[in-house]
């Protein structure tokens, strides 16, 4: 699982370089996110723009990462592709995440905060 990170003041961007987060990769995704976010300070923005497919295991892993970050840090999502958006919508998990239309929108959201 390839994850590309970029650190900005107060925000850690993580770009998922894979086209799916599924039952075959969910555990690996969660473990890598655990390591990558250890030093994250406040916000983590997960860019899912390249992820074409997410199943319930992948969704569970993203929720698990949100929980790993604890109450003092937030996990936000950006650039959901149609299938990924559908899975979030049908499971009503869209309501527990801040979801940005693009990574740029996510970053400018921070600037205005």
């Amino acid at each position, binding site marked *: 699982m390839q994850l590309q990170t970029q650190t900005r003041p107060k925000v850690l961007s993580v770009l998922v370089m894979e086209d799916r987060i599924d*039952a*075959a990769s969910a555990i690996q995704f969660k473990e890598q996110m655990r390591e990558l976010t250890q030093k994250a300070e406040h916000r983590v923005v997960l860019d899912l723009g390249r992820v074409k497919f997410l*199943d*319930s295991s992948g969704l*569970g892993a993203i929720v698990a990462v949100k929980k790993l970050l604890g109450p003092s840090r937030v996990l936000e999502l950006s650039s959901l592709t149609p299938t990924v958006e*559908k899975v979030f919508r049908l499971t009503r998990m869209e309501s527990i995440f801040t979801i940005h239309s693009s990574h740029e929108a996510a970053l400018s959201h921070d600037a205005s905060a």
Partner: protein
Amino acid sequence: MKQPFRMTPAPDLPAPGYACSLVADPHSVRDGLAQIVASPLLAGFGVDARCTVEIVLAEVLNNIAEHAYKGETGEIAVDLRLTGSGVLCLVIDEGVPMPDGSPPPGLLPTAGFQLEDLPEGGFGWHLIRTLTRDLSYTRLGRQNRLSFLIPAKWQHSGDCSKNIPARSWRRNNLPRPGPGAGFTLGFRQVPT
């Protein structure tokens, strides 16, 4: 070592279909899904319908790997047929039966508003139930047989059956499921 699949032979059915068998582990499921989604059978459907098929089958197949075979070696047979109202699916495995003899109701896990209450699982059957119709489960001998319809509209004009080899399910030499096996399908002409 598990015995190979034995399915009741049946008369030839005219419905365009696709069948494959795969090993019940997450990586094989991933590969199998890629083949199914790329199959000529689904070529006439829009991206959205193909995504729905992929989501539903991913959940069904991974559930079988995880719960019916409990992570041990096993085989899954998948048979898809086109009907006038969508893609009719039959999925067969030889793992343990569903608990209580029926598939889970697929209620969404209750999402608390506290961070620690957020559910990390239990979404799979909700997705399956939401995206399918006419879901039916039977235990026949050692086999679990789950059938369901994924409603979808054929996008191309013309008769879809012309473009699809009616015997494409012979791929992988999979024995045919049929009426004797509890799965009877009639192909209805898709309105143009």
